[in-house]
């Protein structure tokens, strides 16, 4: 007995040391590449990609385009984005590679887990990507802390195409950061819905948000939008992000008697429970869910019945029922073939990939500076899975480069327990309604006078420059 235990202990120790060695190897596994790329960088100057084997050992392998992503693999969005990036890479590689200029590259997506708004994890992830693996492009970041990541990417001239909820990544001092999935110019969505609800008779609105960074930013933005659209906005309610029992929240909502309740950054289980609890209080009115995918809607209908959510409008992240663009349909087909089932959580957030793809195809270059120059003087919208996404400048922050994006979005409406496509929010409306909501007309007018008005994709829009 005793001896057996000891032997087992030794076994465990042995396994652990093996694991440790494996860990060390994995941490340091890129050492050869590191030195190779190092020389490439110093001799070639540009050091565009990790041309892993081609440069150093002189083998005949095709060059590799490494695309990094800092993702929170703790979250559904992170996992879904990882799947999409793998799919995109596979599609290129199956077709023989990505032809950029004269070279054909094999696409290799690299994933780095950053936890969820965790400073130390963000730091070690970005350092592994940038310093160890010499990744030159960080596309589609989710869950990282931009202030933390950018302090590593900027000095190392790494292209950062991510998203953030404060304005850390769109400061004029930054040279290699583009907020390719911005929410600053995304007020069109709420603006449309506010207008629709006002038309149906809603007068006052209460914004309900989780007590998180996005929650607070969201509450401010949604509140401002509703005010601009002409609704009376009550004091927002913040609740602890891991709340499971929404009865106290619903009771508080009902006690303030608003006509409409807007949830911002409330999704999945929270959303279902929150609306369920609202129904239990007997409150009736307009609801704007923060995020609603097909599965959540089905669950919601199962829980509260379809009458309660009839006519509910929301932004859609699911391109399937609405998008007729053949390229998008191809991607959706490929996704379903590859993974067998369908999740829409990543569709919206994967937008930066298309902006990156567009920049490379347009410039036919892998050089970071060339790409940045293209991106920061962007003129047109790029098609993403969820519609057109377009980069704009931020003159309100004295940043005259196009570094912040208006993401593509749809509005859908719930009818008979099903989600129906209502309309697409035009890039122009995203842009203009946001400026209107923030009251930045004067600042932007000066910018337009100097640099000219931006051009938009050809879409029907509700607003024009004269409406500001």
């Amino acid at each position, binding site marked *: 007995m005793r001896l057996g235990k000891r032997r087992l*202990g030794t076994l465990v*120790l042995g396994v652990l040391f093996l694991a440790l060695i494996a860990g060390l190897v994995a941490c340091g596994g890129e050492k050869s590449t590191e030195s190779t790329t190092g020389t490439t960088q110093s001799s070639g100057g540009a050091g565009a990609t990790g041309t892993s084997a081609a440069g150093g050992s002189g083998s005949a392998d095709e060059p590799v385009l490494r695309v990094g992503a800092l993702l929170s693999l*703790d979250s559904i969005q992170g996992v879904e984005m990882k799947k999409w990036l793998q799919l995109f890479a596979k599609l290129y590689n199956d077709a023989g590679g990505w032809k950029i200029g004269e070279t054909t590259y094999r696409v290799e997506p690299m994933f780095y887990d950053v936890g969820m*708004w965790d400073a130390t994890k963000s730091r*070690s992830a970005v350092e592994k990507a940038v310093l160890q693996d010499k990744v030159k492009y960080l596309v589609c970041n989710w869950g990282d802390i931009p202030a933390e990541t950018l302090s590593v990417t900027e000095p190392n001239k790494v292209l950062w195409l991510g998203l953030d909820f*404060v304005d850390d990544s769109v400061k004029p001092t930054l040279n290699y950061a583009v907020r390719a999935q911005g929410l600053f110019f995304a007020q069109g969505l709420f603006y449309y819905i506010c207008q629709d609800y006002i038309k149906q008779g809603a007068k006052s609105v209460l914004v309900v948000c989780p007590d998180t960074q996005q*929650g607070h930013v969201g509450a401010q933005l949604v509140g401002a939008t509703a005010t601009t659209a002409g609704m009376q906005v009550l004091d927002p309610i913040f609740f602890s992000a891991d709340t499971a029992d929404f009865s106290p929240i619903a009771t508080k909502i009902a006690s303030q008697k608003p006509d409409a309740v807007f949830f911002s950054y409330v999704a999945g289980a929270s959303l279902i429970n929150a609306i369920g609890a609202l129904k239990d209080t007997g409150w009736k009115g307009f609801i704007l869910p923060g995020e609603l995918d097909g599965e959540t809607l089905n669950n919601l209908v199962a829980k509260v019945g379809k009458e309660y959510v009839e006519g509910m409008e929301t932004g859609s992240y699911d391109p399937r029922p609405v998008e007729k663009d053949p390229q998008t349909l191809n991607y959706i087909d490929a996704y379903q073939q590859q993974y067998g089932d369908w999740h829409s959580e990543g569709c919206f957030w994967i937008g930066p990939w298309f902006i990156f793809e567009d920049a490379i195809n347009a410039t036919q270059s892998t050089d970071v500076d060339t790409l940045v120059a293209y991106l920061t003087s962007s003129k047109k919208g790029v098609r993403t899975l969820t519609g057109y996404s377009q980069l704009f400048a931020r003159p309100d922050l004295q940043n005259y480069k196009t570094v912040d994006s208006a993401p593509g979005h749809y509005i859908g409406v719930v009818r008979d327990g099903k989600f129906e496509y209502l309309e697409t929010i035009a890039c122009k409306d995203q842009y203009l309604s946001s400026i209107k909501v923030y009251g930045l007309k004067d600042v932007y007018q000066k910018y337009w006078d100097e640099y000219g008005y931006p051009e938009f994709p050809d879409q029907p829009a509700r607003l024009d420059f004269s409406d500001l």
Partner: protein
Amino acid sequence: MRRAMLFKSNKWWLIPAFLLAVALPFFVGAYRLQIFIFVITYSLLALAFQLTMRVGLPRFDVAAWWGVGAYTSGMLMLKANMSFWLTLPISVLVSVVLGFAVFSVSVRRGMMVFMMFGMVFALALQQVFGSVKFFGGWGGTPQLPPVTIGSYVLNDKMWIYYLGMALLIFNLGVYQLLYKSRIGRAWSAIGSGLRLASSLGVNVVGYRLANVLVGNAFLALAGSFSVVYQAMIIPTTYGFQQSIYVMMYVVIGGLGFAMAGPIVGALVLTLISESMRAAQQYQPIVTGVITVLIIMFAPWGLLGVLRSRVVSVLQRLLSSRAALPDIPSSLGSPASVTAEEPGKDA
């Protein structure tokens, strides 16, 4: 003479370990050096945990006090334009004074209440950091100003690493002095049994409080240190999960090893976790399985197994007696059948 003493005192491995630590930056790249900087930070946290374990108090508020150190330094640098070096003593002071207020409620109520109260406190503190506007909210503080020495900006990984190393060695030195002193003997007495300690006339509550506050001081230093390499402070970093990881470091390293256990545990787990960066969703499972296996088959941790192997080899060579270190017995169940012989009951 001194060298002979060192070899005799069974601490000869300290010299190569120290040399290795000093030489490390010359062999590894910037990213891996950063990993070692994290290992240093986690070691500091685990050492504080181990310190209170010595008096029979497991604490789950380690990450919270780490956050107190980071926030104090960061806030003073941001809002009062203070030099980083000036904030160090202040963060220690804040951590100790606040700690005194909190722990004077809970320490006298025994281990169980101390532990659970610590959890509730950590939860509440994170809420404060997250929800109070002054601290920057859940999104964290604005970008922190860089740490400088005179006009030199401390952003070279190597010097940050050496700073951390110095802090770690300082920490180890202070703990060693404390363990060897009268206070340390009182702590050991408390650790090996409360009744015994009280019967020896040891003021259990007082010594425990002192112990926890010493831990707090070094946790605050660890927090301030993290400001050196971190661009900003964000409340979610200092959550409950991190405290649980700290506990795992200590056990995996070896509970009986006051100094080396936490460091080895932090090193091993951080490297394992780091090596699984691309498959992070499996990392908790791997860590969990490793922990269960260690507890069941190597309850004295990696170092315990290592030492028992070395000892058994030495025993065979020298046929002399050497024993494993004891786990503080107040953490064991009270003398009872089942705790001693669980295999025989069912």
